[in-house]
């Protein structure tokens, strides 16, 4: 196993870069960070739409969220991989396809986290803000969102773990990321699948487990602050995020 790592660590880490496109673990992390960064603003809008005072906006965003949640991520990838080029008229590469699919998928999940974070705040917070004369937007920006986003930080972090795991599906459309790199190494060596896939699984595990543990630490920290100050922050409702394995 160490021998394989010694011989192939560059491929595992950055793929064929700089001779070819960036790949390997670096590409996985890059795709995940891009995916999170781009889906966050969409999620914020979707999440606010889910609790909008306007019925039509609530209905449209609910349909979007439920449709995405009911569709396998692979289907979303295929839609953007095969159908998008037909719509926009020219082919697109695997990398932006995967990032695009991740943004669609994660926006829906993060939107639900934003929504439940907002709904978990005591009603008195928004009433107090509105009683001062702040309008809806001002109340959201100054009072509701800072608290809601802070409270849902641990859930968002676990969702980021899901996002990292989802990037592995880029393998199916041959995006140069970590799983793809391992499969390349595997087919080159032919006789060492146990070692190669153990390296792959172990690396993912270390990355994701570290993030999971930090999410738990943040959650404990917030829970402690809440205990010290139980009157003002109600604990998040038992909201089940459905993680991606």
């Amino acid at each position, binding site marked *: 196993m160490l021998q394989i790592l010694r011989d192939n660590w560059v491929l595992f880490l950055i793929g064929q870069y700089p001779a070819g496109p960036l790949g390997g673990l670096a590409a996985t992390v890059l795709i995940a960070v891009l995916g999170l960064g781009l889906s966050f603003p969409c999620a914020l809008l979707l999440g606010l739409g889910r609790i909008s005072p306007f019925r039509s906006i609530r209905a449209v965003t609910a349909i979007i969220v*439920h*449709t995405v*949640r*009911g*569709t*396998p*991520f*692979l*289907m979303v990838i*295929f*839609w953007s991989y*095969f*159908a998008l080029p*037909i*719509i926009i008229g020219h082919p697109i590469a695997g990398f932006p396809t995967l990032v695009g699919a991740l943004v669609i998928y994660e926006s829906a999940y993060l939107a639900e986290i934003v929504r439940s974070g907002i709904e978990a705040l005591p009603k008195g917070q928004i009433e107090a803000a509105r009683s001062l004369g702040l309008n809806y937007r001002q109340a959201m920006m100054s009072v509701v969102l800072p608290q809601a986003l802070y409270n849902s930080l641990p859930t968002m972090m676990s969702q980021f*773990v899901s996002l*990292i*795991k*989802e*990037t*592995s*599906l880029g*393998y*199916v459309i041959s995006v140069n990321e970590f*799983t793809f790199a391992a*499969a390349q190494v*595997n087919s080159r060596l032919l006789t060492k*699948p*146990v070692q*190669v*896939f*153990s390296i*792959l*699984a172990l690396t*993912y*595990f270390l990355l*994701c*487990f570290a993030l*999971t543990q930090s999410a738990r630490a943040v959650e404990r920290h917030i829970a402690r602050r809440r205990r010290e100050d139980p009157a003002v922050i109600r604990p998040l409702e038992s909201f*089940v995020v*459905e*993680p*991606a*394995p």
Partner: protein
Amino acid sequence: MMGYSLDFTAVLAGEHLKWLLSGIQVTAELFAGAWALALLLAVVLIVLRNTGLRPAHWFVTTYVEVHQNVPLLVQVLFWYFAVPELLPAPAQIWLNEHNSEFILALLALSFCIAAYMSEALRSGLRAIPPTQYEASRALGFGYLSTMRYVILPQAARLSLPPLINYTLLLFKNTSIAMAIGVHELTYQSRQIENDTFRTFEVFAVATAIYLLSSFAIMALGALYERRAGLQAR
């Protein structure tokens, strides 16, 4: 999209319809088989954890963390490429003669989802106050009757919402089996797409099938939850 006219007959007739139907059947088998096995494994895990033995507790914790922090696709690839290598030769031969892709995908899916389901059961059990247990023992019930009549019915109700979520999760992720060549719905729609170039139609049909099934699972869950909620009152 100029000049692209939709034509569903290429997808929903003849040979291609047969492919589609067989894909649906394989997805359904994979889902049902993996669900039953995952639930069984989850119960085994939770029993192991509650034995009070240190190694058993450690094993279950590690099992859950590993399966939750490694991508399912990687688990599937590991089962497909690596696990057979670890088996004795007769077992390998048996696998190859019996649709190894399907069996290995089913095992990978159930071993992974079992980790999630056992966590759902655990959170349900943990939410029951110990006084319930004490009250039941004080009435003269033994350990098993206490579990059977007092603890488990309450825990099941609390575990239900996450269990339904994980059922949905399992259903959607049966599509990952296509990566190792299981002829399920996603695989077959790719094949039809290849054959007809009717990209929109075939993905629309496949997505609709997935969506309807997902909504059915969600609705069933909501219905059951409401009934359980009424009983609780």
